[in-house]
């Protein structure tokens, strides 16, 4: 290998080395940089969404099972947190995995539907699941507080380490570290699933189910497992959301949320763990950023009474729809692929003749 080639290889490896360091610095420093601002809260929400998107990407991106039913599992997780953490007074290290377990069980219950149905029909069932979930959440008052919703005040401490009060940091800062720490754990777990024997089996099912069956993959088993794990991750995200917001009502777990999660993995990158995280950050920040710039756009009204041509909410929804179509058609790999392609082009050796 010539020295030029070695240099090129090193250059290409550079991002893979510097990336974790950069992420670690961001993880530690961002809560200080953002201070105690509104954007820190948005970052916490983005982290919670990232956990959910990682779960959905395993199911939809890697196994090819399109699910709009994510809000059902997120909601179930939030209520499980309320019941375990508040009503039963269980500590953090029990209620959070407990919520995940509830999600796992529900996913395993719904999973068998996915065995009989694929493509269009699975979308239909998961879409119906959102409405059935909304019905249960608004009526099971003992657990969910009914249509009015319920408060969730739960402990977030492991032994002496209280994530609500770390070395005098504010609640938002602590939650940032907690949530993004769990993003890291979920990403690591799902990444390992994808890059192992079961993960390859899942992708084989996605690409050609019949062939997967012929080479000896237990398709039904794997499909239900993917559903259960994805739902467990979603429930953990929902539980963290409930704990952070401290109040949830049934209307939050609506169909639009399910479409938003699908949008996250489309925008970020289908089938890529990093893609799920990037997409979650983009989709979470977008409406708030739009609200910021809306003031300087002449035709946009921040509130309905402002009398602009279009409200920020409407503009956000439209932008959201356009983004979905754009990434599906023009950039199907999402931002994750676009970023790595750009990085590759930068670090790749230039060939002159």
């Amino acid at each position, binding site marked *: 290998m010539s020295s030029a080639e070695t240099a090129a290889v090193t250059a290409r490896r550079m991002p893979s080395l510097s990336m974790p360091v950069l992420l670690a610095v961001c993880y530690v420093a961002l809560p200080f940089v953002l201070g105690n601002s509104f954007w820190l809260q948005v970052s916490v929400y983005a982290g919670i969404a990232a956990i959910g998107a990682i779960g959905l990407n395993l199911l939809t991106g890697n196994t090819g099972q399109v699910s709009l039913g994510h809000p059902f599992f997120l909601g179930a997780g939030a209520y499980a947190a309320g019941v375990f953490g508040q009503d039963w007074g269980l500590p953090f290290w029990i209620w959070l995995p407990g919520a995940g377990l509830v999600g796992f069980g529900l996913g395993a219950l719904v999973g068998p539907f996915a065995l009989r*149905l694929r493509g269009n029909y699975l*979308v*239909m069932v998961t879409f119906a699941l959102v*409405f059935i979930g909304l019905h249960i959440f608004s009526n*099971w008052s003992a657990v969910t507080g009914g249509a009015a919703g319920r408060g969730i005040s739960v402990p977030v401490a492991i032994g002496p380490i209280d994530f609500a009060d770390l070395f005098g940091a504010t609640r938002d800062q602590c939650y940032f570290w907690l949530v993004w720490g769990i993003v890291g754990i979920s990403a690591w777990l799902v990444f390992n699933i994808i890059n192992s024997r079961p993960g390859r089996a899942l992708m084989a099912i996605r690409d050609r189910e019949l062939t997967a069956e012929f080479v000896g993959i237990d398709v039904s088993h794997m499909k239900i497992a993917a559903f259960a794990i994805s739902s467990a991750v979603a429930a953990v995200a929902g539980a963290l959301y409930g704990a952070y917001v401290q109040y949830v009502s049934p209307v939050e777990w609506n169909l639009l949320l399910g479409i938003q999660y699908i949008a996250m993995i489309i925008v970020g990158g289908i089938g890529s763990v990093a893609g799920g995280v990037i997409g979650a950050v983009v989709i979470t920040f977008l409406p708030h950023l739009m609200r910021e710039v809306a003031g300087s756009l002449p035709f946009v009204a921040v509130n309905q009474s402002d009398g602009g041509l279009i409200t920020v909410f*409407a503009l956000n929804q439209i932008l959201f729809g356009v983004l979905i179509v754009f990434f599906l058609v023009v950039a199907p790999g999402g931002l994750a692929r676009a970023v790595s392609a750009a990085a590759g082009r930068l670090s790749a050796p230039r060939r002159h003749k």
Partner: protein
Amino acid sequence: MIDFTKLIFAGLSLGSVYALIALGFVMVYKATGILNFAQGGLLMLGAYLAQYFINGLGTTFWIALPMAMLATGLVAAGLQRTIFDKLLTHPAFTVIMATWAVLIVLEQVPITLFGYDFLNMNDPFGLAMVSIASVQVFTIDLWTLAFAAGSVAVLAVFFFRTRMGLAMRATASDPEAAIAQGIEPRLVHATAWFVAGMLACLAGVMLGGGSRLVSPELSHVALRAIPAVILGGLSSPLGAVVGGILIGIAEVLTAAWAPTLAPWLGKNLHLVMPYFLLVGFLMFRPQGLFGQRQSGRV
């Protein structure tokens, strides 16, 4: 007994609206293979347009209705030409998500133009009632039934008596052979969307008229017609009509009976009843009542 007749009648009326929406779904699905979740957006747009023609431009209902239907049909055909024609070779996931994206955008158009207020259609039916065999029914419900029956009849004539209808049936049964016979697939696709748009508009006007109001909620009603499509079978126009009517009756009967018979099932059970039926049917008879079992070759 009178109560029961009344309920069945209300169910028939609601069901015929679902049938109109479901027919639009099936039309587009058969012609293009697309499950068009944006149908609710078209329905909402159509209702708001008709309302604008009546209240804003001062036309009578009988001029506003065809105008709105034409406009909504053109919007639908435009969507096909600009977006969905380009997605024909893309995977099903892409197309389905694109219809959701279009729905999200379409829902914002009437809201941006007319706001969130509930608007009165000012149609000629209003709250008028007629008495049939000593049962009092809303006039608009009768008209809804008549419009649905009329649409089905017109569509039947269109499918079985016109060249375009023949071309559409040919495309649905074998797209490649149809192209080989000189049928222009794009024209067929655009026609299917156009008809679906018109049906959606008609359904929207009937849902927003009479004792009800035009509101952003209309878009959600269209989603409840999706179970009707599954009940009848995705590719069966007859099934769409039967499925729509069954869902309508089931919803009305649940609304009337569930609160007294099974209060423990929760409030507003009728709003999720269609979805329970959908899940049940997908579990035990995924091809629906009239659909054909899907089989694939290895």
